[in-house]
């Protein structure tokens, strides 16, 4: 079916292909192996770009309807279908190449490494296909969700949102589909820009603007690493094009002919790239921007800051796996492993103490990204990539469910003020979706999250400590984190979604997301009244069809993603995709020898049980501490109000540690003290230096022409004809005398 559709598409576009046949042939020559893809693949990123243009045009015409959303969703759906066709038409092992045009071509010599060429070209292997499938698919669904979620902002704001949304998908497609590191960089910066724009969507709200700025600045620091890594890659290997680069790495030599293992670049480049990846994916020291990024509209949090953009770092490391493996000491991989594992644990400790449900999801995203990196680090690329895929679905589900709650309760996100949504009319779909998402996140047996997480943790035990230092310790840390994850996930579920019905509307009493339009838009939500009586008249409103449909589809996606584990013969479907990409790791070649054992069993087999135990443990703890009385609290809960739970006295007893955890271990304050304050002091010093010395010099040089101008003007341009004539003649004399003097 898919193949035939592809053929039809080919036929439709055959004219265009014929026109560009020359280029296509050129691309085929350029690629050392692989197949040339049909031209319509180029439409996958270009359709969202078209969306940007159309939505911008609508903004120009001051369109007030939901037209921008329908255009975006339509184009994204086509984009997704094209991706699906590309996947179905793919032969399963060769990379698809397609070069649209020559983008950058600089040449300053004939030697290797003296030509910097990058086409606007695409590279479709298993890895990029897998990514593109969930990027376009989720973007389409979340766009549909946003069409309802953002409806209070119809008009310019709506257009602004969807323009940035489409631009994001375009950038993300360039990042993932690009066939060279420059394309990746283009997309990388593009998604960063869109992230910034969308976090600061409510530009009248200071915290949102600050959060956008923070995300941008922190990402810049990481991007510096990426940029330096790219430049070093170019100087070392002489190319930025993936195929050429991997071929060069495969030879074990640099472009200059030095054996790779003897160079410092072999560990420096992966470490620098890791810096970029950690910045974008909010790992280790860079994670601070992501929780604040939850200031953006929830669909943005779901798509950009949970499912897709933040996985760009994972993509980068997976894509560059050959580079990481080239280092015999595996320095960078060890750093990736421990960076991921520590981040996973660290942010889980923060998540257990938070009360804002969206922020909990934010920290959980950081934590899960840590799993992915740890997976890549311990050579479980399949596990890492599979976790990206499952996580994209269940985290999007979780965020969108939280968003539905927020939408219905006027921006209320505090779990101490919400309870028993199951019993409130119109929220059943949300609760079920939330439950499915929570089960996935906590690694409940036979969910997608369970399989993907297990692959990572098991591989951590499989990979010997001699290859990746402390691999098994990282495994234990990740296992502990799995338990904590189950706990904080179900802490949210037990407190908010089941139990006695208690609710308090949020502070903005409109949707949380539209501060700037508080009185500009009257509409059917029924809580537009002044703040003081609104609380009394407040009725939560359940989501309408668009949100419910999306939540349903995503829940189904979550469930189905588990099935992918059983597809194919390389550790599931994701394994097959990874196997046909640059991220494939021949573990036997790297590790050699016997598989390590855990409790006397092969880790991959026993891990199902161990992690199930940790998962159940976490859920039961959550039920005991936070669950309501009755069946909804698994019969062990005892909560009767929204605010008070069995955990409270323990948290009190654990003071000050619990307070610190609530305050996120004061990391932001620490950064402020150690980084921001000294920088500000320097900035003031430089400001004064600039003002006094630099400006002084500039003013001096600026004043010189002015003074001489007045001097010349007043003395020569008197307006009297005779003076002019005299000066002209005298000038001639002077010029001639100068000539004579210089000559003789």
């Amino acid at each position, binding site marked *: 079916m898919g193949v035939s559709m592809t053929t039809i598409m080919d036929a439709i576009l055959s004219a265009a292909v014929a026109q560009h046949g020359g280029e296509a042939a050129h691309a085929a020559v350029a690629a050392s192996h692989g197949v040339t893809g049909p031209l319509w693949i180029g439409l996958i990123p270009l359709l969202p770009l078209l969306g940007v243009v159309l939505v911008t045009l609508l903004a120009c015409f001051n369109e007030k309807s939901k037209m921008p959303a329908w255009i975006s969703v339509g184009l994204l759906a086509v984009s997704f279908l094209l991706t699906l066709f590309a996947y179905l038409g793919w032969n399963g092992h060769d990379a698809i190449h397609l070069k649209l045009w020559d983008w950058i071509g600089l040449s300053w010599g004939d030697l290797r490494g003296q030509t910097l060429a990058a086409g606007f070209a695409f590279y479709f292997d298993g890895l990029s296909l897998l990514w593109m499938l969930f990027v376009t698919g989720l973007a389409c669904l979340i766009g549909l969700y946003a069409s309802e979620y953002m409806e209070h902002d119809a008009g310019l704001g709506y257009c602004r949102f969807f323009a940035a949304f489409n631009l994001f998908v375009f950038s993300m497609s360039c990042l993932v589909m690009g066939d060279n590191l420059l394309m990746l960089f283009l997309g990388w910066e593009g998604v960063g820009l869109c992230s910034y724009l969308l976090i600061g969507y409510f530009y009248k709200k200071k915290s949102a603007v600050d959060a956008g700025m923070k995300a941008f600045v922190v990402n810049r620091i990481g991007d510096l690493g990426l940029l330096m890594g790219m430049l070093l890659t170019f100087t070392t290997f002489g190319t930025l094009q993936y195929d050429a680069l991997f071929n060069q790495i495969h030879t074990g030599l640099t472009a200059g002919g030095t054996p790779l293992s003897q160079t410092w670049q072999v560990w420096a480049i992966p470490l620098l790239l890791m810096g970029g990846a950690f910045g974008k994916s909010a790992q280790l020291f860079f994670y601070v921007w992501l929780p604040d990024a939850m200031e953006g509209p929830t669909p943005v949090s779901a798509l950009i800051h949970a499912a897709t953009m933040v996985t760009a770092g994972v993509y980068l490391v997976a894509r560059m796996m050959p580079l990481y493996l080239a280092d015999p000491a595996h320095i960078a991989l060890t750093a990736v492993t421990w960076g991921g594992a520590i981040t996973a644990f660290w942010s889980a400790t923060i998540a257990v103490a938070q009360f804002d449900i969206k922020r909990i999801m934010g920290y959980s995203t950081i934590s899960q990204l840590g799993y992915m990196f740890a997976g890549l680090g311990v050579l479980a690329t399949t596990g890492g990539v599979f976790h990206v895929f499952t996580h994209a679905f269940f985290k999007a589900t979780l965020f969108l469910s939280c968003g539905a709650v927020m939408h219905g309760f006027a921006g209320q996100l505090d779990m101490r003020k919400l309870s028993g949504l199951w019993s409130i009319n119109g929220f059943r779909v949300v609760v079920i979706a939330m439950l499915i998402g929570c089960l996935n996140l906590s690694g409940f047996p036979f969910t997608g999250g369970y399989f993907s997480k297990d692959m990572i943790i098991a591989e951590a035990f499989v990979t010997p400590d001699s290859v990746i230092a402390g691999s098994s310790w990282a495994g234990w840390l990740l296992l502990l984190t799995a338990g904590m994850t189950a706990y904080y996930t179900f802490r949210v579920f037990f407190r908010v979604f089941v139990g006695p019905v208690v609710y308090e509307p949020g502070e903005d009493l409109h949707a949380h997301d539209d501060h700037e339009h508080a009185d500009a838009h009257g509409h059917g939500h029924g809580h537009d009244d002044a703040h003081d009586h609104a609380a009394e008249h407040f009725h939560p409103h359940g989501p309408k069809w668009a949100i419910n449909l999306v939540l349903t589809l995503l829940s189904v996606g979550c469930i189905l993603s588990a099935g992918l584990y059983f597809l194919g013969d390389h550790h599931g479907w994701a394994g097959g995709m990874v196997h046909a990409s640059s991220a494939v790791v021949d573990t036997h070649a790297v590790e050699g020898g016997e598989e390590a054992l855990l409790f006397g069993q092969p880790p991959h087999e026993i891990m199902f049980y161990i992690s199930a135990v940790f998962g159940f443990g976490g859920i039961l703890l959550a039920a005991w501490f936070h669950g309501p009385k009755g069946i909804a609290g698994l019969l062990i809960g005892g909560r009767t109000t929204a605010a008070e739970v069995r955990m409270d006295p323990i948290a009190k007893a654990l003071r000050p540690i619990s307070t610190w955890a609530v305050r996120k271990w004061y990391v932001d304050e620490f950064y402020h003290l150690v980084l921001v304050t000294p920088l500000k002091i320097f900035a003031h010093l430089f400001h004064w230096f600039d003002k006094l010395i630099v400006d002084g010099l500039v003013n001096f040089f600026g004043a010189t022409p002015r003074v001489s101008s007045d001097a010349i*003007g*007043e003395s020569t*341009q*008197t*307006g*009297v*004809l*005779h003076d002019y*004539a*005299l000066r002209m*003649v005298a000038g001639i004399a002077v010029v001639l005398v100068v000539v004579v003097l210089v000559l003789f």
Partner: protein
Amino acid sequence: MHALLADSTLTGGLLTLAQSDFPHALSTLTLNHYLFVSAAMFALGIIGFLTRRNLIIMFLCTELMFQAAGLALIAFGRYHLNFDGQSFVIFVLTIAAAEAAMALALVVLLFRRRESLDADLWAELKG
């Protein structure tokens, strides 16, 4: 006659412009003499332009300069024994005449406005 002139030009660089029965002092006029007179006229023209304030006299001074150039052209033409210089002078005279016509029209216009021919009265625009 022509041959003689050409000969003297080539041999001694001495340019005889006059008939042989002219007084000696005139018959030995060289190119240099003419150029000197021409330069003097040119300089006088400039000096007159700079010192006189009457518009008509200033214009006559520029005419003097034009004619100085004309004299030089004639002298060089004679020296080189071709007619380029002479024909140039005819055109110079034409242009001078055209300029004279314009100058007089302009002077009349200006005089009507200021009731004076003093060039330095026109000094409103400056800086």
